[in-house]
Every structure is written in structure tokens, then in C-alpha cells.
């Protein structure tokens, strides 16, 4: 069997992303290593303080020849449209988490709203990646 360890998001700028994920979202750096022999490849991962066994890789869009310019441009466009990736976060109290993140400077694109599955809101990171923040209804016990 296996477990999910890390999942990747493309970011425009790893330093900018690092600041957003740690200072605004309150996540912690799990690893941050640059390998000079491999063109300064930087392995940068973050995750919430209470989840040490899973992380998001904040990956820089590579240049040529690893990724050709057209593909890199396509990826940047998808990110700008918010179609490059989405992370689904869950919380026990959507309104409180929303207010906490907003007070830290996170700009929400959707305010908390009642949905069939719970209370849901959404924001985007500086690269355009989508985040949903959801208080999921306990459908089994309610």
C-alpha cells in the first residue's frame, strides 16, 4: 500500500510563494533545498503545522530544455485562469478560519457560503492556484 506524501503546484516565484504559504497561510516549511549541480533546482515543500506527513511542493516552472517555452507559457496561462491546480483544505470552523486568514492578508475570491456538503469559501495563491476551504457536514452522524 502507499500514502500520499507530496503533491505539486506550479508557482511563478518560489520566494514569493514561500512568504505567502508561511506568513499568510501559516504553513511550515518541510524542506527547502537548492542543488547547485542541477541548475539550482530548488525542492521547496510546505504543509500545515499539524500535518507533518503530507506536503505541497512549490515548484518553479523550469526553463528550456526541460520545458519548452510554449509549454511554459501554456502553464502560466492555465495558472492565471485558475485551472492549473486546486488544493482542497478542510476545517472544523469555516467562518473562523476565513476570518483568521483574511486578517493575515489572504484575499478571498469567494466568501463562506452554505452548500449541500457544508460551508465553503475560496482564495487563490499569488500564482493563481485555487484553494477551497471547507467545513464539511458530518453527513453520517447528522
Amino acid at each position, binding site marked *: 500500500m502507499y500514502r500520499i506524501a507530496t503533491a505539486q503546484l506550479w508557482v511563478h516565484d518560489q520566494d514569493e510563494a514561500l512568504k505567502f504559504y*508561511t506568513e499568510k497561510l501559516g504553513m511550515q516549511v518541510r524542506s*527547502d*533545498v*537548492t*542543488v547547485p*549541480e*542541477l541548475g539550482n*533546482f530548488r*525542492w521547496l515543500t510546505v504543509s500545515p503545522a499539524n500535518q507533518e506527513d503530507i506536503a505541497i511542493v512549490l515548484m518553479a516552472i*523550469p526553463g528550456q530544455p526541460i520545458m519548452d517555452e510554449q509549454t511554459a507559457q501554456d502553464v502560466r496561462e492555465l495558472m492565471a485562469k485558475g485551472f492549473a491546480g486546486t488544493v482542497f483544505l478542510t476545517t472544523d470552523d469555516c467562518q473562523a478560519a476565513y476570518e483568521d486568514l483574511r486578517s493575515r492578508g489572504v484575499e478571498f475570491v469567494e466568501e463562506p457560503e452554505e452548500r449541500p456538503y457544508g460551508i465553503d469559501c475560496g482564495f487563490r495563491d499569488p500564482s493563481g492556484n485555487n484553494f477551497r476551504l471547507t467545513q464539511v457536514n458530518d453527513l453520517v452522524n447528522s
Partner: protein
Amino acid sequence: MRYAEPLEVGDLARAAGLSQAHFSRAFRKAFGESPHAYLLTRRLERAAALLRNTDDSVADICVAVGLTSIGSFTTSFKRMFGTPPAAYRAAFPPAATFAQVPACVLRFYGRPQLRTFREDDRAAR
């Protein structure tokens, strides 16, 4: 979770709605150590993880865990882990070992960097 911020015992006491003296006494009774020691332990554990898993400088790590004096950071770290931060880091494999470099990056940089194999030179001559 907020220990990277400049938290002091007074902030913890205020959050709990108690006077600092009463908070410290009650905390020690409940958890067996002073809130100051608890906070410092959490910060040093986090610093140890950053020393193992990042290539950030010792000074940056000190600041990242909410401590301001590198001198006292080094002293407290040594008291807890038996070695100063730099030696602690050196006892583990370099953090770069854990970078999960994608195969396409490895293949590109794994190729010989002199890529003409001199055929071009000969043709030019």
C-alpha cells in the same frame, strides 16, 4: 503553531486570560515544565528539523523559529541536543539528498556538459 512570532510568556498568559505569575504556576502544575521551557523546546525542535531538511543558514533558522539572539540560540541548542546547530546539521546526510529532483532535470544535468564531442571542431578546421 505561532512560535515563529515573537511570542513571550506574557502573550500566552494574556491569551489564557490569567496573570503571568498565575499562568506560569498553573502551566507548570498541569504540564510539568514552565511555559518558558515549553516554548523554547518547541522552537528548538523546529530549528532541528529545519537544520536537517533545509539549507537555510543557522542565522535564518534562528529567526524563523522566533528567536532573536544567535548566541543564546546556539547555547540553548547545544544544551538540548548536545552539539551546536552547525555540528548537529553536519551529523545528518546533506539536505540535498532528500530533494526529489524530477527525472527530466536529472537527465539534462546528468549529460556530459561538453556536448560537442569535438566533431564540430574538426569540421571547422
